[in-house]
């Protein structure tokens, strides 16, 4: 699923400026960082409600392409800056993590477990 399709289908607001419209094949949902660390596939979409800077460190270390913040969770400025520095896209949606994952799944994003 392209980032541009996510923007359309999740009504996603991108906070990190310009992005490369890459095709995201895998996804993971978690609010525990060591679970993300241990199991999230690389080059994936991470759906979470954790909106602070530690998420960026984990996403960078695990090569996650896009962080989708569910339930309209807003990161602070520092977190957005850090994300820009590390080339990780952050998008915010009003939808819940459950609904977000469902839409991604229905659009071909799968849950490869690493």
């Amino acid at each position: 699923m392209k980032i541009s399709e996510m923007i359309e289908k999740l009504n996603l607001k991108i906070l990190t400026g310009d992005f490369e419209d890459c095709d995201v094949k895998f996804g993971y949902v978690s609010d525990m960082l060591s679970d993300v660390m241990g199991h999230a596939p690389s080059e994936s979409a991470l759906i979470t409600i954790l909106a602070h800077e530690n998420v960026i460190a984990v996403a960078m270390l695990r090569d996650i392409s896009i962080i989708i913040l569910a339930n309209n969770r807003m990161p602070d400025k520092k977190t957005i800056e850090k994300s820009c520095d590390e080339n990780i896209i952050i998008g915010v949606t009003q939808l819940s993590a459950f609904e977000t994952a469902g839409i991604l799944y229905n659009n071909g994003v799968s849950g490869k477990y690493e």
Partner: protein
Amino acid sequence: MDRKYIIEGGNFSEAGFASSDVKKLLKKLGLPTNIIKKVAIAMYEAEINVVAHAYRGEMEFKIVPGQIRVTVQDEGPGIPDVELAFTEGFSTASSKVREMGFGAGMGLPNIKRNTDEISLHTEVEKGTKLSFIINFT
């Protein structure tokens, strides 16, 4: 190629610096992605454990032919039951730490799963020394 990092207990905004720095170095050196992934996971979890559970610590990173060696030594409460600490799901993380998304009790198991050799020495009320090795060809 050695690196040394100071880790401050309780400082979550700096947490992950050592692992990110090493990840960038290994990428530059052209190590295989699966090795970089293992090092990143193990180092991050070790780093976070000092931030979340100890007062201060030092992390040493070394590359020797075929091996990456990491040692993390901290001053802190130590670990009373090491076997229990390595059990997936066991955590003594405070509610403040949990709110930030830590405390799944998966850090030490993640380290074990991603390393080839691991040793942990700990003394209650003094501190903990964790060393691990990741082999590469």
